[in-house]
C-alpha cells in the first residue's frame, strides 16, 4: 500500500518534469518575453543588396522613442506626422531597426522599416534613404490583404523615389488630403478598391521619414555615424573582397 503511494508521488513528479520541459522549451523558443517588436528585414544581407546594389556592408542599430526622448519626443513626432500613435502595437517603446549602409568605409545611406496597420493585416514598409533623407527606393516587405501584388510592384515603388519628408509636410494623414495638392497627390493608387491600404502605406512612409528625422538625422552631426544605439550588429555581404565592418565598431 505504502509502496503504491510512493510510486504515485513519483509519477506526479514525472508529470511535473514533462511540463517543466514543455515550459522550458516554450520559454527558449519565445525569448524575449516582453517588449514591443520592431520591423526587421527578413534577410538583411540579401534585402540590402537589393535596395543598395553598390553597398559592401551594413551595420544595424536600434532606436526607440522611449529611449531617445520619451513622451516629449513622441509629441513632436506625432505633431510632425499629423496623427497620434495608437492601438495595441504602435507604442512608445517599439524598437526601430536602422540599417546603416556602407560602400567600403563610406556611409551611403540607411534602410529603415515600420509596421503599419492595414485593412486586413500588417504592412511592413521599408525605405532606402540617402544620408540626407531622400528616398532612394521603397520596399513593401509584407502586405496582408487584397492588391498585395500591385502595392509591391516596381511601378508603385518608383513613385516614391526622390521624395523627402518635406514633400509630405502638406499631406494630412488623418484627412488623407494634401493641401495644396503636391507630390503626394501625384502618387497613384494601383488598387482603387483598396483605398484604406493605399492611405495606410502613405502614412507608413511619412511615419518612417519622421522617425528617421527625429531618431537618427536630428541626433547625427555631419560626418558622424549613427546615434547612440541600444544594440549593434554587423553584416558584411558574402563574397570575396567584401570588406567586413567589425562588430562593435566605434559609434
Amino acid at each position, binding site marked *: 500500500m505504502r509502496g503504491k503511494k510512493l510510486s504515485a508521488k513519483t509519477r506526479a513528479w514525472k508529470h511535473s518534469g514533462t511540463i517543466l520541459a514543455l*515550459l522550458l522549451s516554450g520559454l527558449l523558443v519565445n525569448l524575449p518575453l516582453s517588449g514591443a517588436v520592431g520591423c526587421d528585414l527578413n534577410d538583411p544581407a540579401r534585402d540590402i543588396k537589393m535596395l543598395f546594389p553598390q553597398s559592401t556592408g551594413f551595420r544595424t542599430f536600434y532606436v526607440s522613442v522611449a529611449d531617445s526622448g520619451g513622451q516629449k519626443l513622441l509629441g513632436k513626432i506625432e505633431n510632425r506626422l499629423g496623427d497620434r500613435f495608437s492601438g495595441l502595437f504602435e507604442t512608445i517603446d517599439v524598437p526601430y531597426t536602422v540599417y546603416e549602409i556602407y560602400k567600403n568605409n563610406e556611409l551611403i545611406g540607411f534602410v529603415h522599416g515600420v509596421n503599419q496597420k492595414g485593412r486586413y493585416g500588417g504592412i511592413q514598409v521599408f525605405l532606402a534613404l540617402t544620408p540626407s533623407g531622400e528616398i532612394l527606393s521603397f520596399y513593401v516587405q509584407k502586405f496582408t490583404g487584397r492588391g498585395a501584388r500591385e502595392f509591391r510592384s516596381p511601378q508603385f515603388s518608383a513613385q516614391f523615389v526622390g521624395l523627402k519628408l518635406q514633400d509630405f509636410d502638406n499631406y494630412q494623414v488623418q484627412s488623407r488630403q494634401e493641401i495644396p495638392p503636391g507630390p503626394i497627390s501625384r502618387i497613384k493608387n494601383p488598387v482603387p478598391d483598396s483605398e484604406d491600404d493605399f492611405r495606410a502605406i502613405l502614412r507608413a512612409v511619412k511615419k518612417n521619414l519622421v522617425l528617421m528625422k527625429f531618431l537618427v538625422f536630428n541626433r547625427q552631426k555631419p560626418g558622424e555615424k549613427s546615434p547612440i544605439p541600444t544594440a549593434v550588429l554587423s553584416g558584411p555581404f558574402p563574397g570575396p573582397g567584401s570588406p567586413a565592418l567589425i562588430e562593435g565598431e566605434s559609434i
Partner: protein
Amino acid sequence: MNEPKKISLFHIAWKNLSRKKTRSLLTVVGIALATWVLISLFGFNSGYKNSLDRDIDNLGFQMLVVAKGCPYEAATLMLKGGTGLKYMNEEVVKLIVREPEVESVTPMLMQVVFDPNKGQSGGLTAFLGIDPATFPSLKPGLSFKQGGWFTDPEALEVVMGYEAAELEQREVGDMYFIPEKEIELKVVGVLSRSGTQDDGTIFIPLKTLQKLFDQPDQLTSVGVKVNKEADLARFEEKMFQLPDVQVVSLTQVKTTIMTLLSTARVLVFSIALIAILISIMGVINTVLMSVMERQKEIGILKAMGALAADVFKLVWVETSLLCLLGGLTGAGLAVLTSRLTEYLIRQLLPFSPSGGLISIDAGLILVSIAAVVLLGLVSGIYPAFRAARMRPLEAIRSEEE
C-alpha cells in the same frame, strides 16, 4: 508561620539560562538559524511543487497524439516548407477518451497557406483549428489582452496570439485576410503574451478551418490531459497501439529534469540535515558546559534531597527552553524573510514556476518547532544523564578542588 515558597523547575531552569546570557543567546541563535533553514527549505520544497502543479494545470494538455509523420509544431511545419501534413479522422478522439487515464482531450487541425507577399520570396502562415468547447479549458493559462474566444463553433472568426497580432497589427474588431484562400475573418480576441508558441499562433474554430480548407472530420493532432496520478509511460504505450498515430512526449528531457529535481531535493535535505546536526552539537555543548560548571550546585541540590530524576528533569527543561526559544525565533524569521528568500531563489534558479515558491503554513511551523524541541530533548539526554548520576559529595568536592 509562612509556607516555604515553591519554586518550579521551569523557574530554576530559566534562572540558570539567564546566568550565562551570551552563551544561552548564542545557542538560541544557532537553533533559530537551523529552524529558519529547515522551515525555509521545506517551505520551498512544498511551494515549488505547488507552483509547478499549478503550471501543469495552466499548461493544459501534457501530451499530443498526432498523425504518424505529421509535423506537430508550426515551427517544424515551416522548416518542412509547409508540406507533410498528415491527418487522422476525428474518430480517434473517441478511442483516446475511453482510456481511464484521460482527463480531457481537445482535437486540433493545423493548416498552412503560402503567402507570396511575405518578403522577397514569400512565406508561410499557419493556422490552428481548435475546438472552442474544450481548448480554452485545457489552456487556462491563456489570458486575453483584448476580446475573448469565438462566439460560435463555426464562426468566421480568429483569435490571435500576441506576436501574431503584432505582426499583423490586428486588434479586436479588425478583419483578417487569409492569403491564398482570399477569405476574410473577424478578429475577436488577442491573447496576452504567454511565453509559449501560442504567442505566434492564429486560432480559428476547428469546424470553420475544416470547412475553409476542405478537410471535413480531419485532425492533425489531439491534445490529451491525463490524470495527475496516471502512469504517463504506460499511457504513452497504450496510445502507440492506436493505428497510424504517434505520441509526442519529451521523455529524454523529462528524465533529465527529473534527475535535476531529485538532485536538488537531495541537496535541500542534506543542507537541512547539516544545519540540524550543527545546532544539536551546539545544544549539547551549551548544556554540557552548563552542567559541568554547576557541579557543586547540583551536588548541593542532591545533598538537600533532590532525586536524580529531578536533576535530569531540570537539565532537560533547560534544553527544551533553549530549543523552544530557538524554534520560535527561527519560525518567525522564516515567515518574515520568506519574500526575500523567494526573491533570492528566483535570481538563482534558471527556471522557476510562476506563483509563490515558498509555502509556509501553520502545520509546517508547528511540525518544525516540535521537531526542533524533540531533537533538543534527545540532545539533552547525555548532559542530563551526566548531571543526574553525579554523586553529591564528589560533585561538591570536585568543584572545590
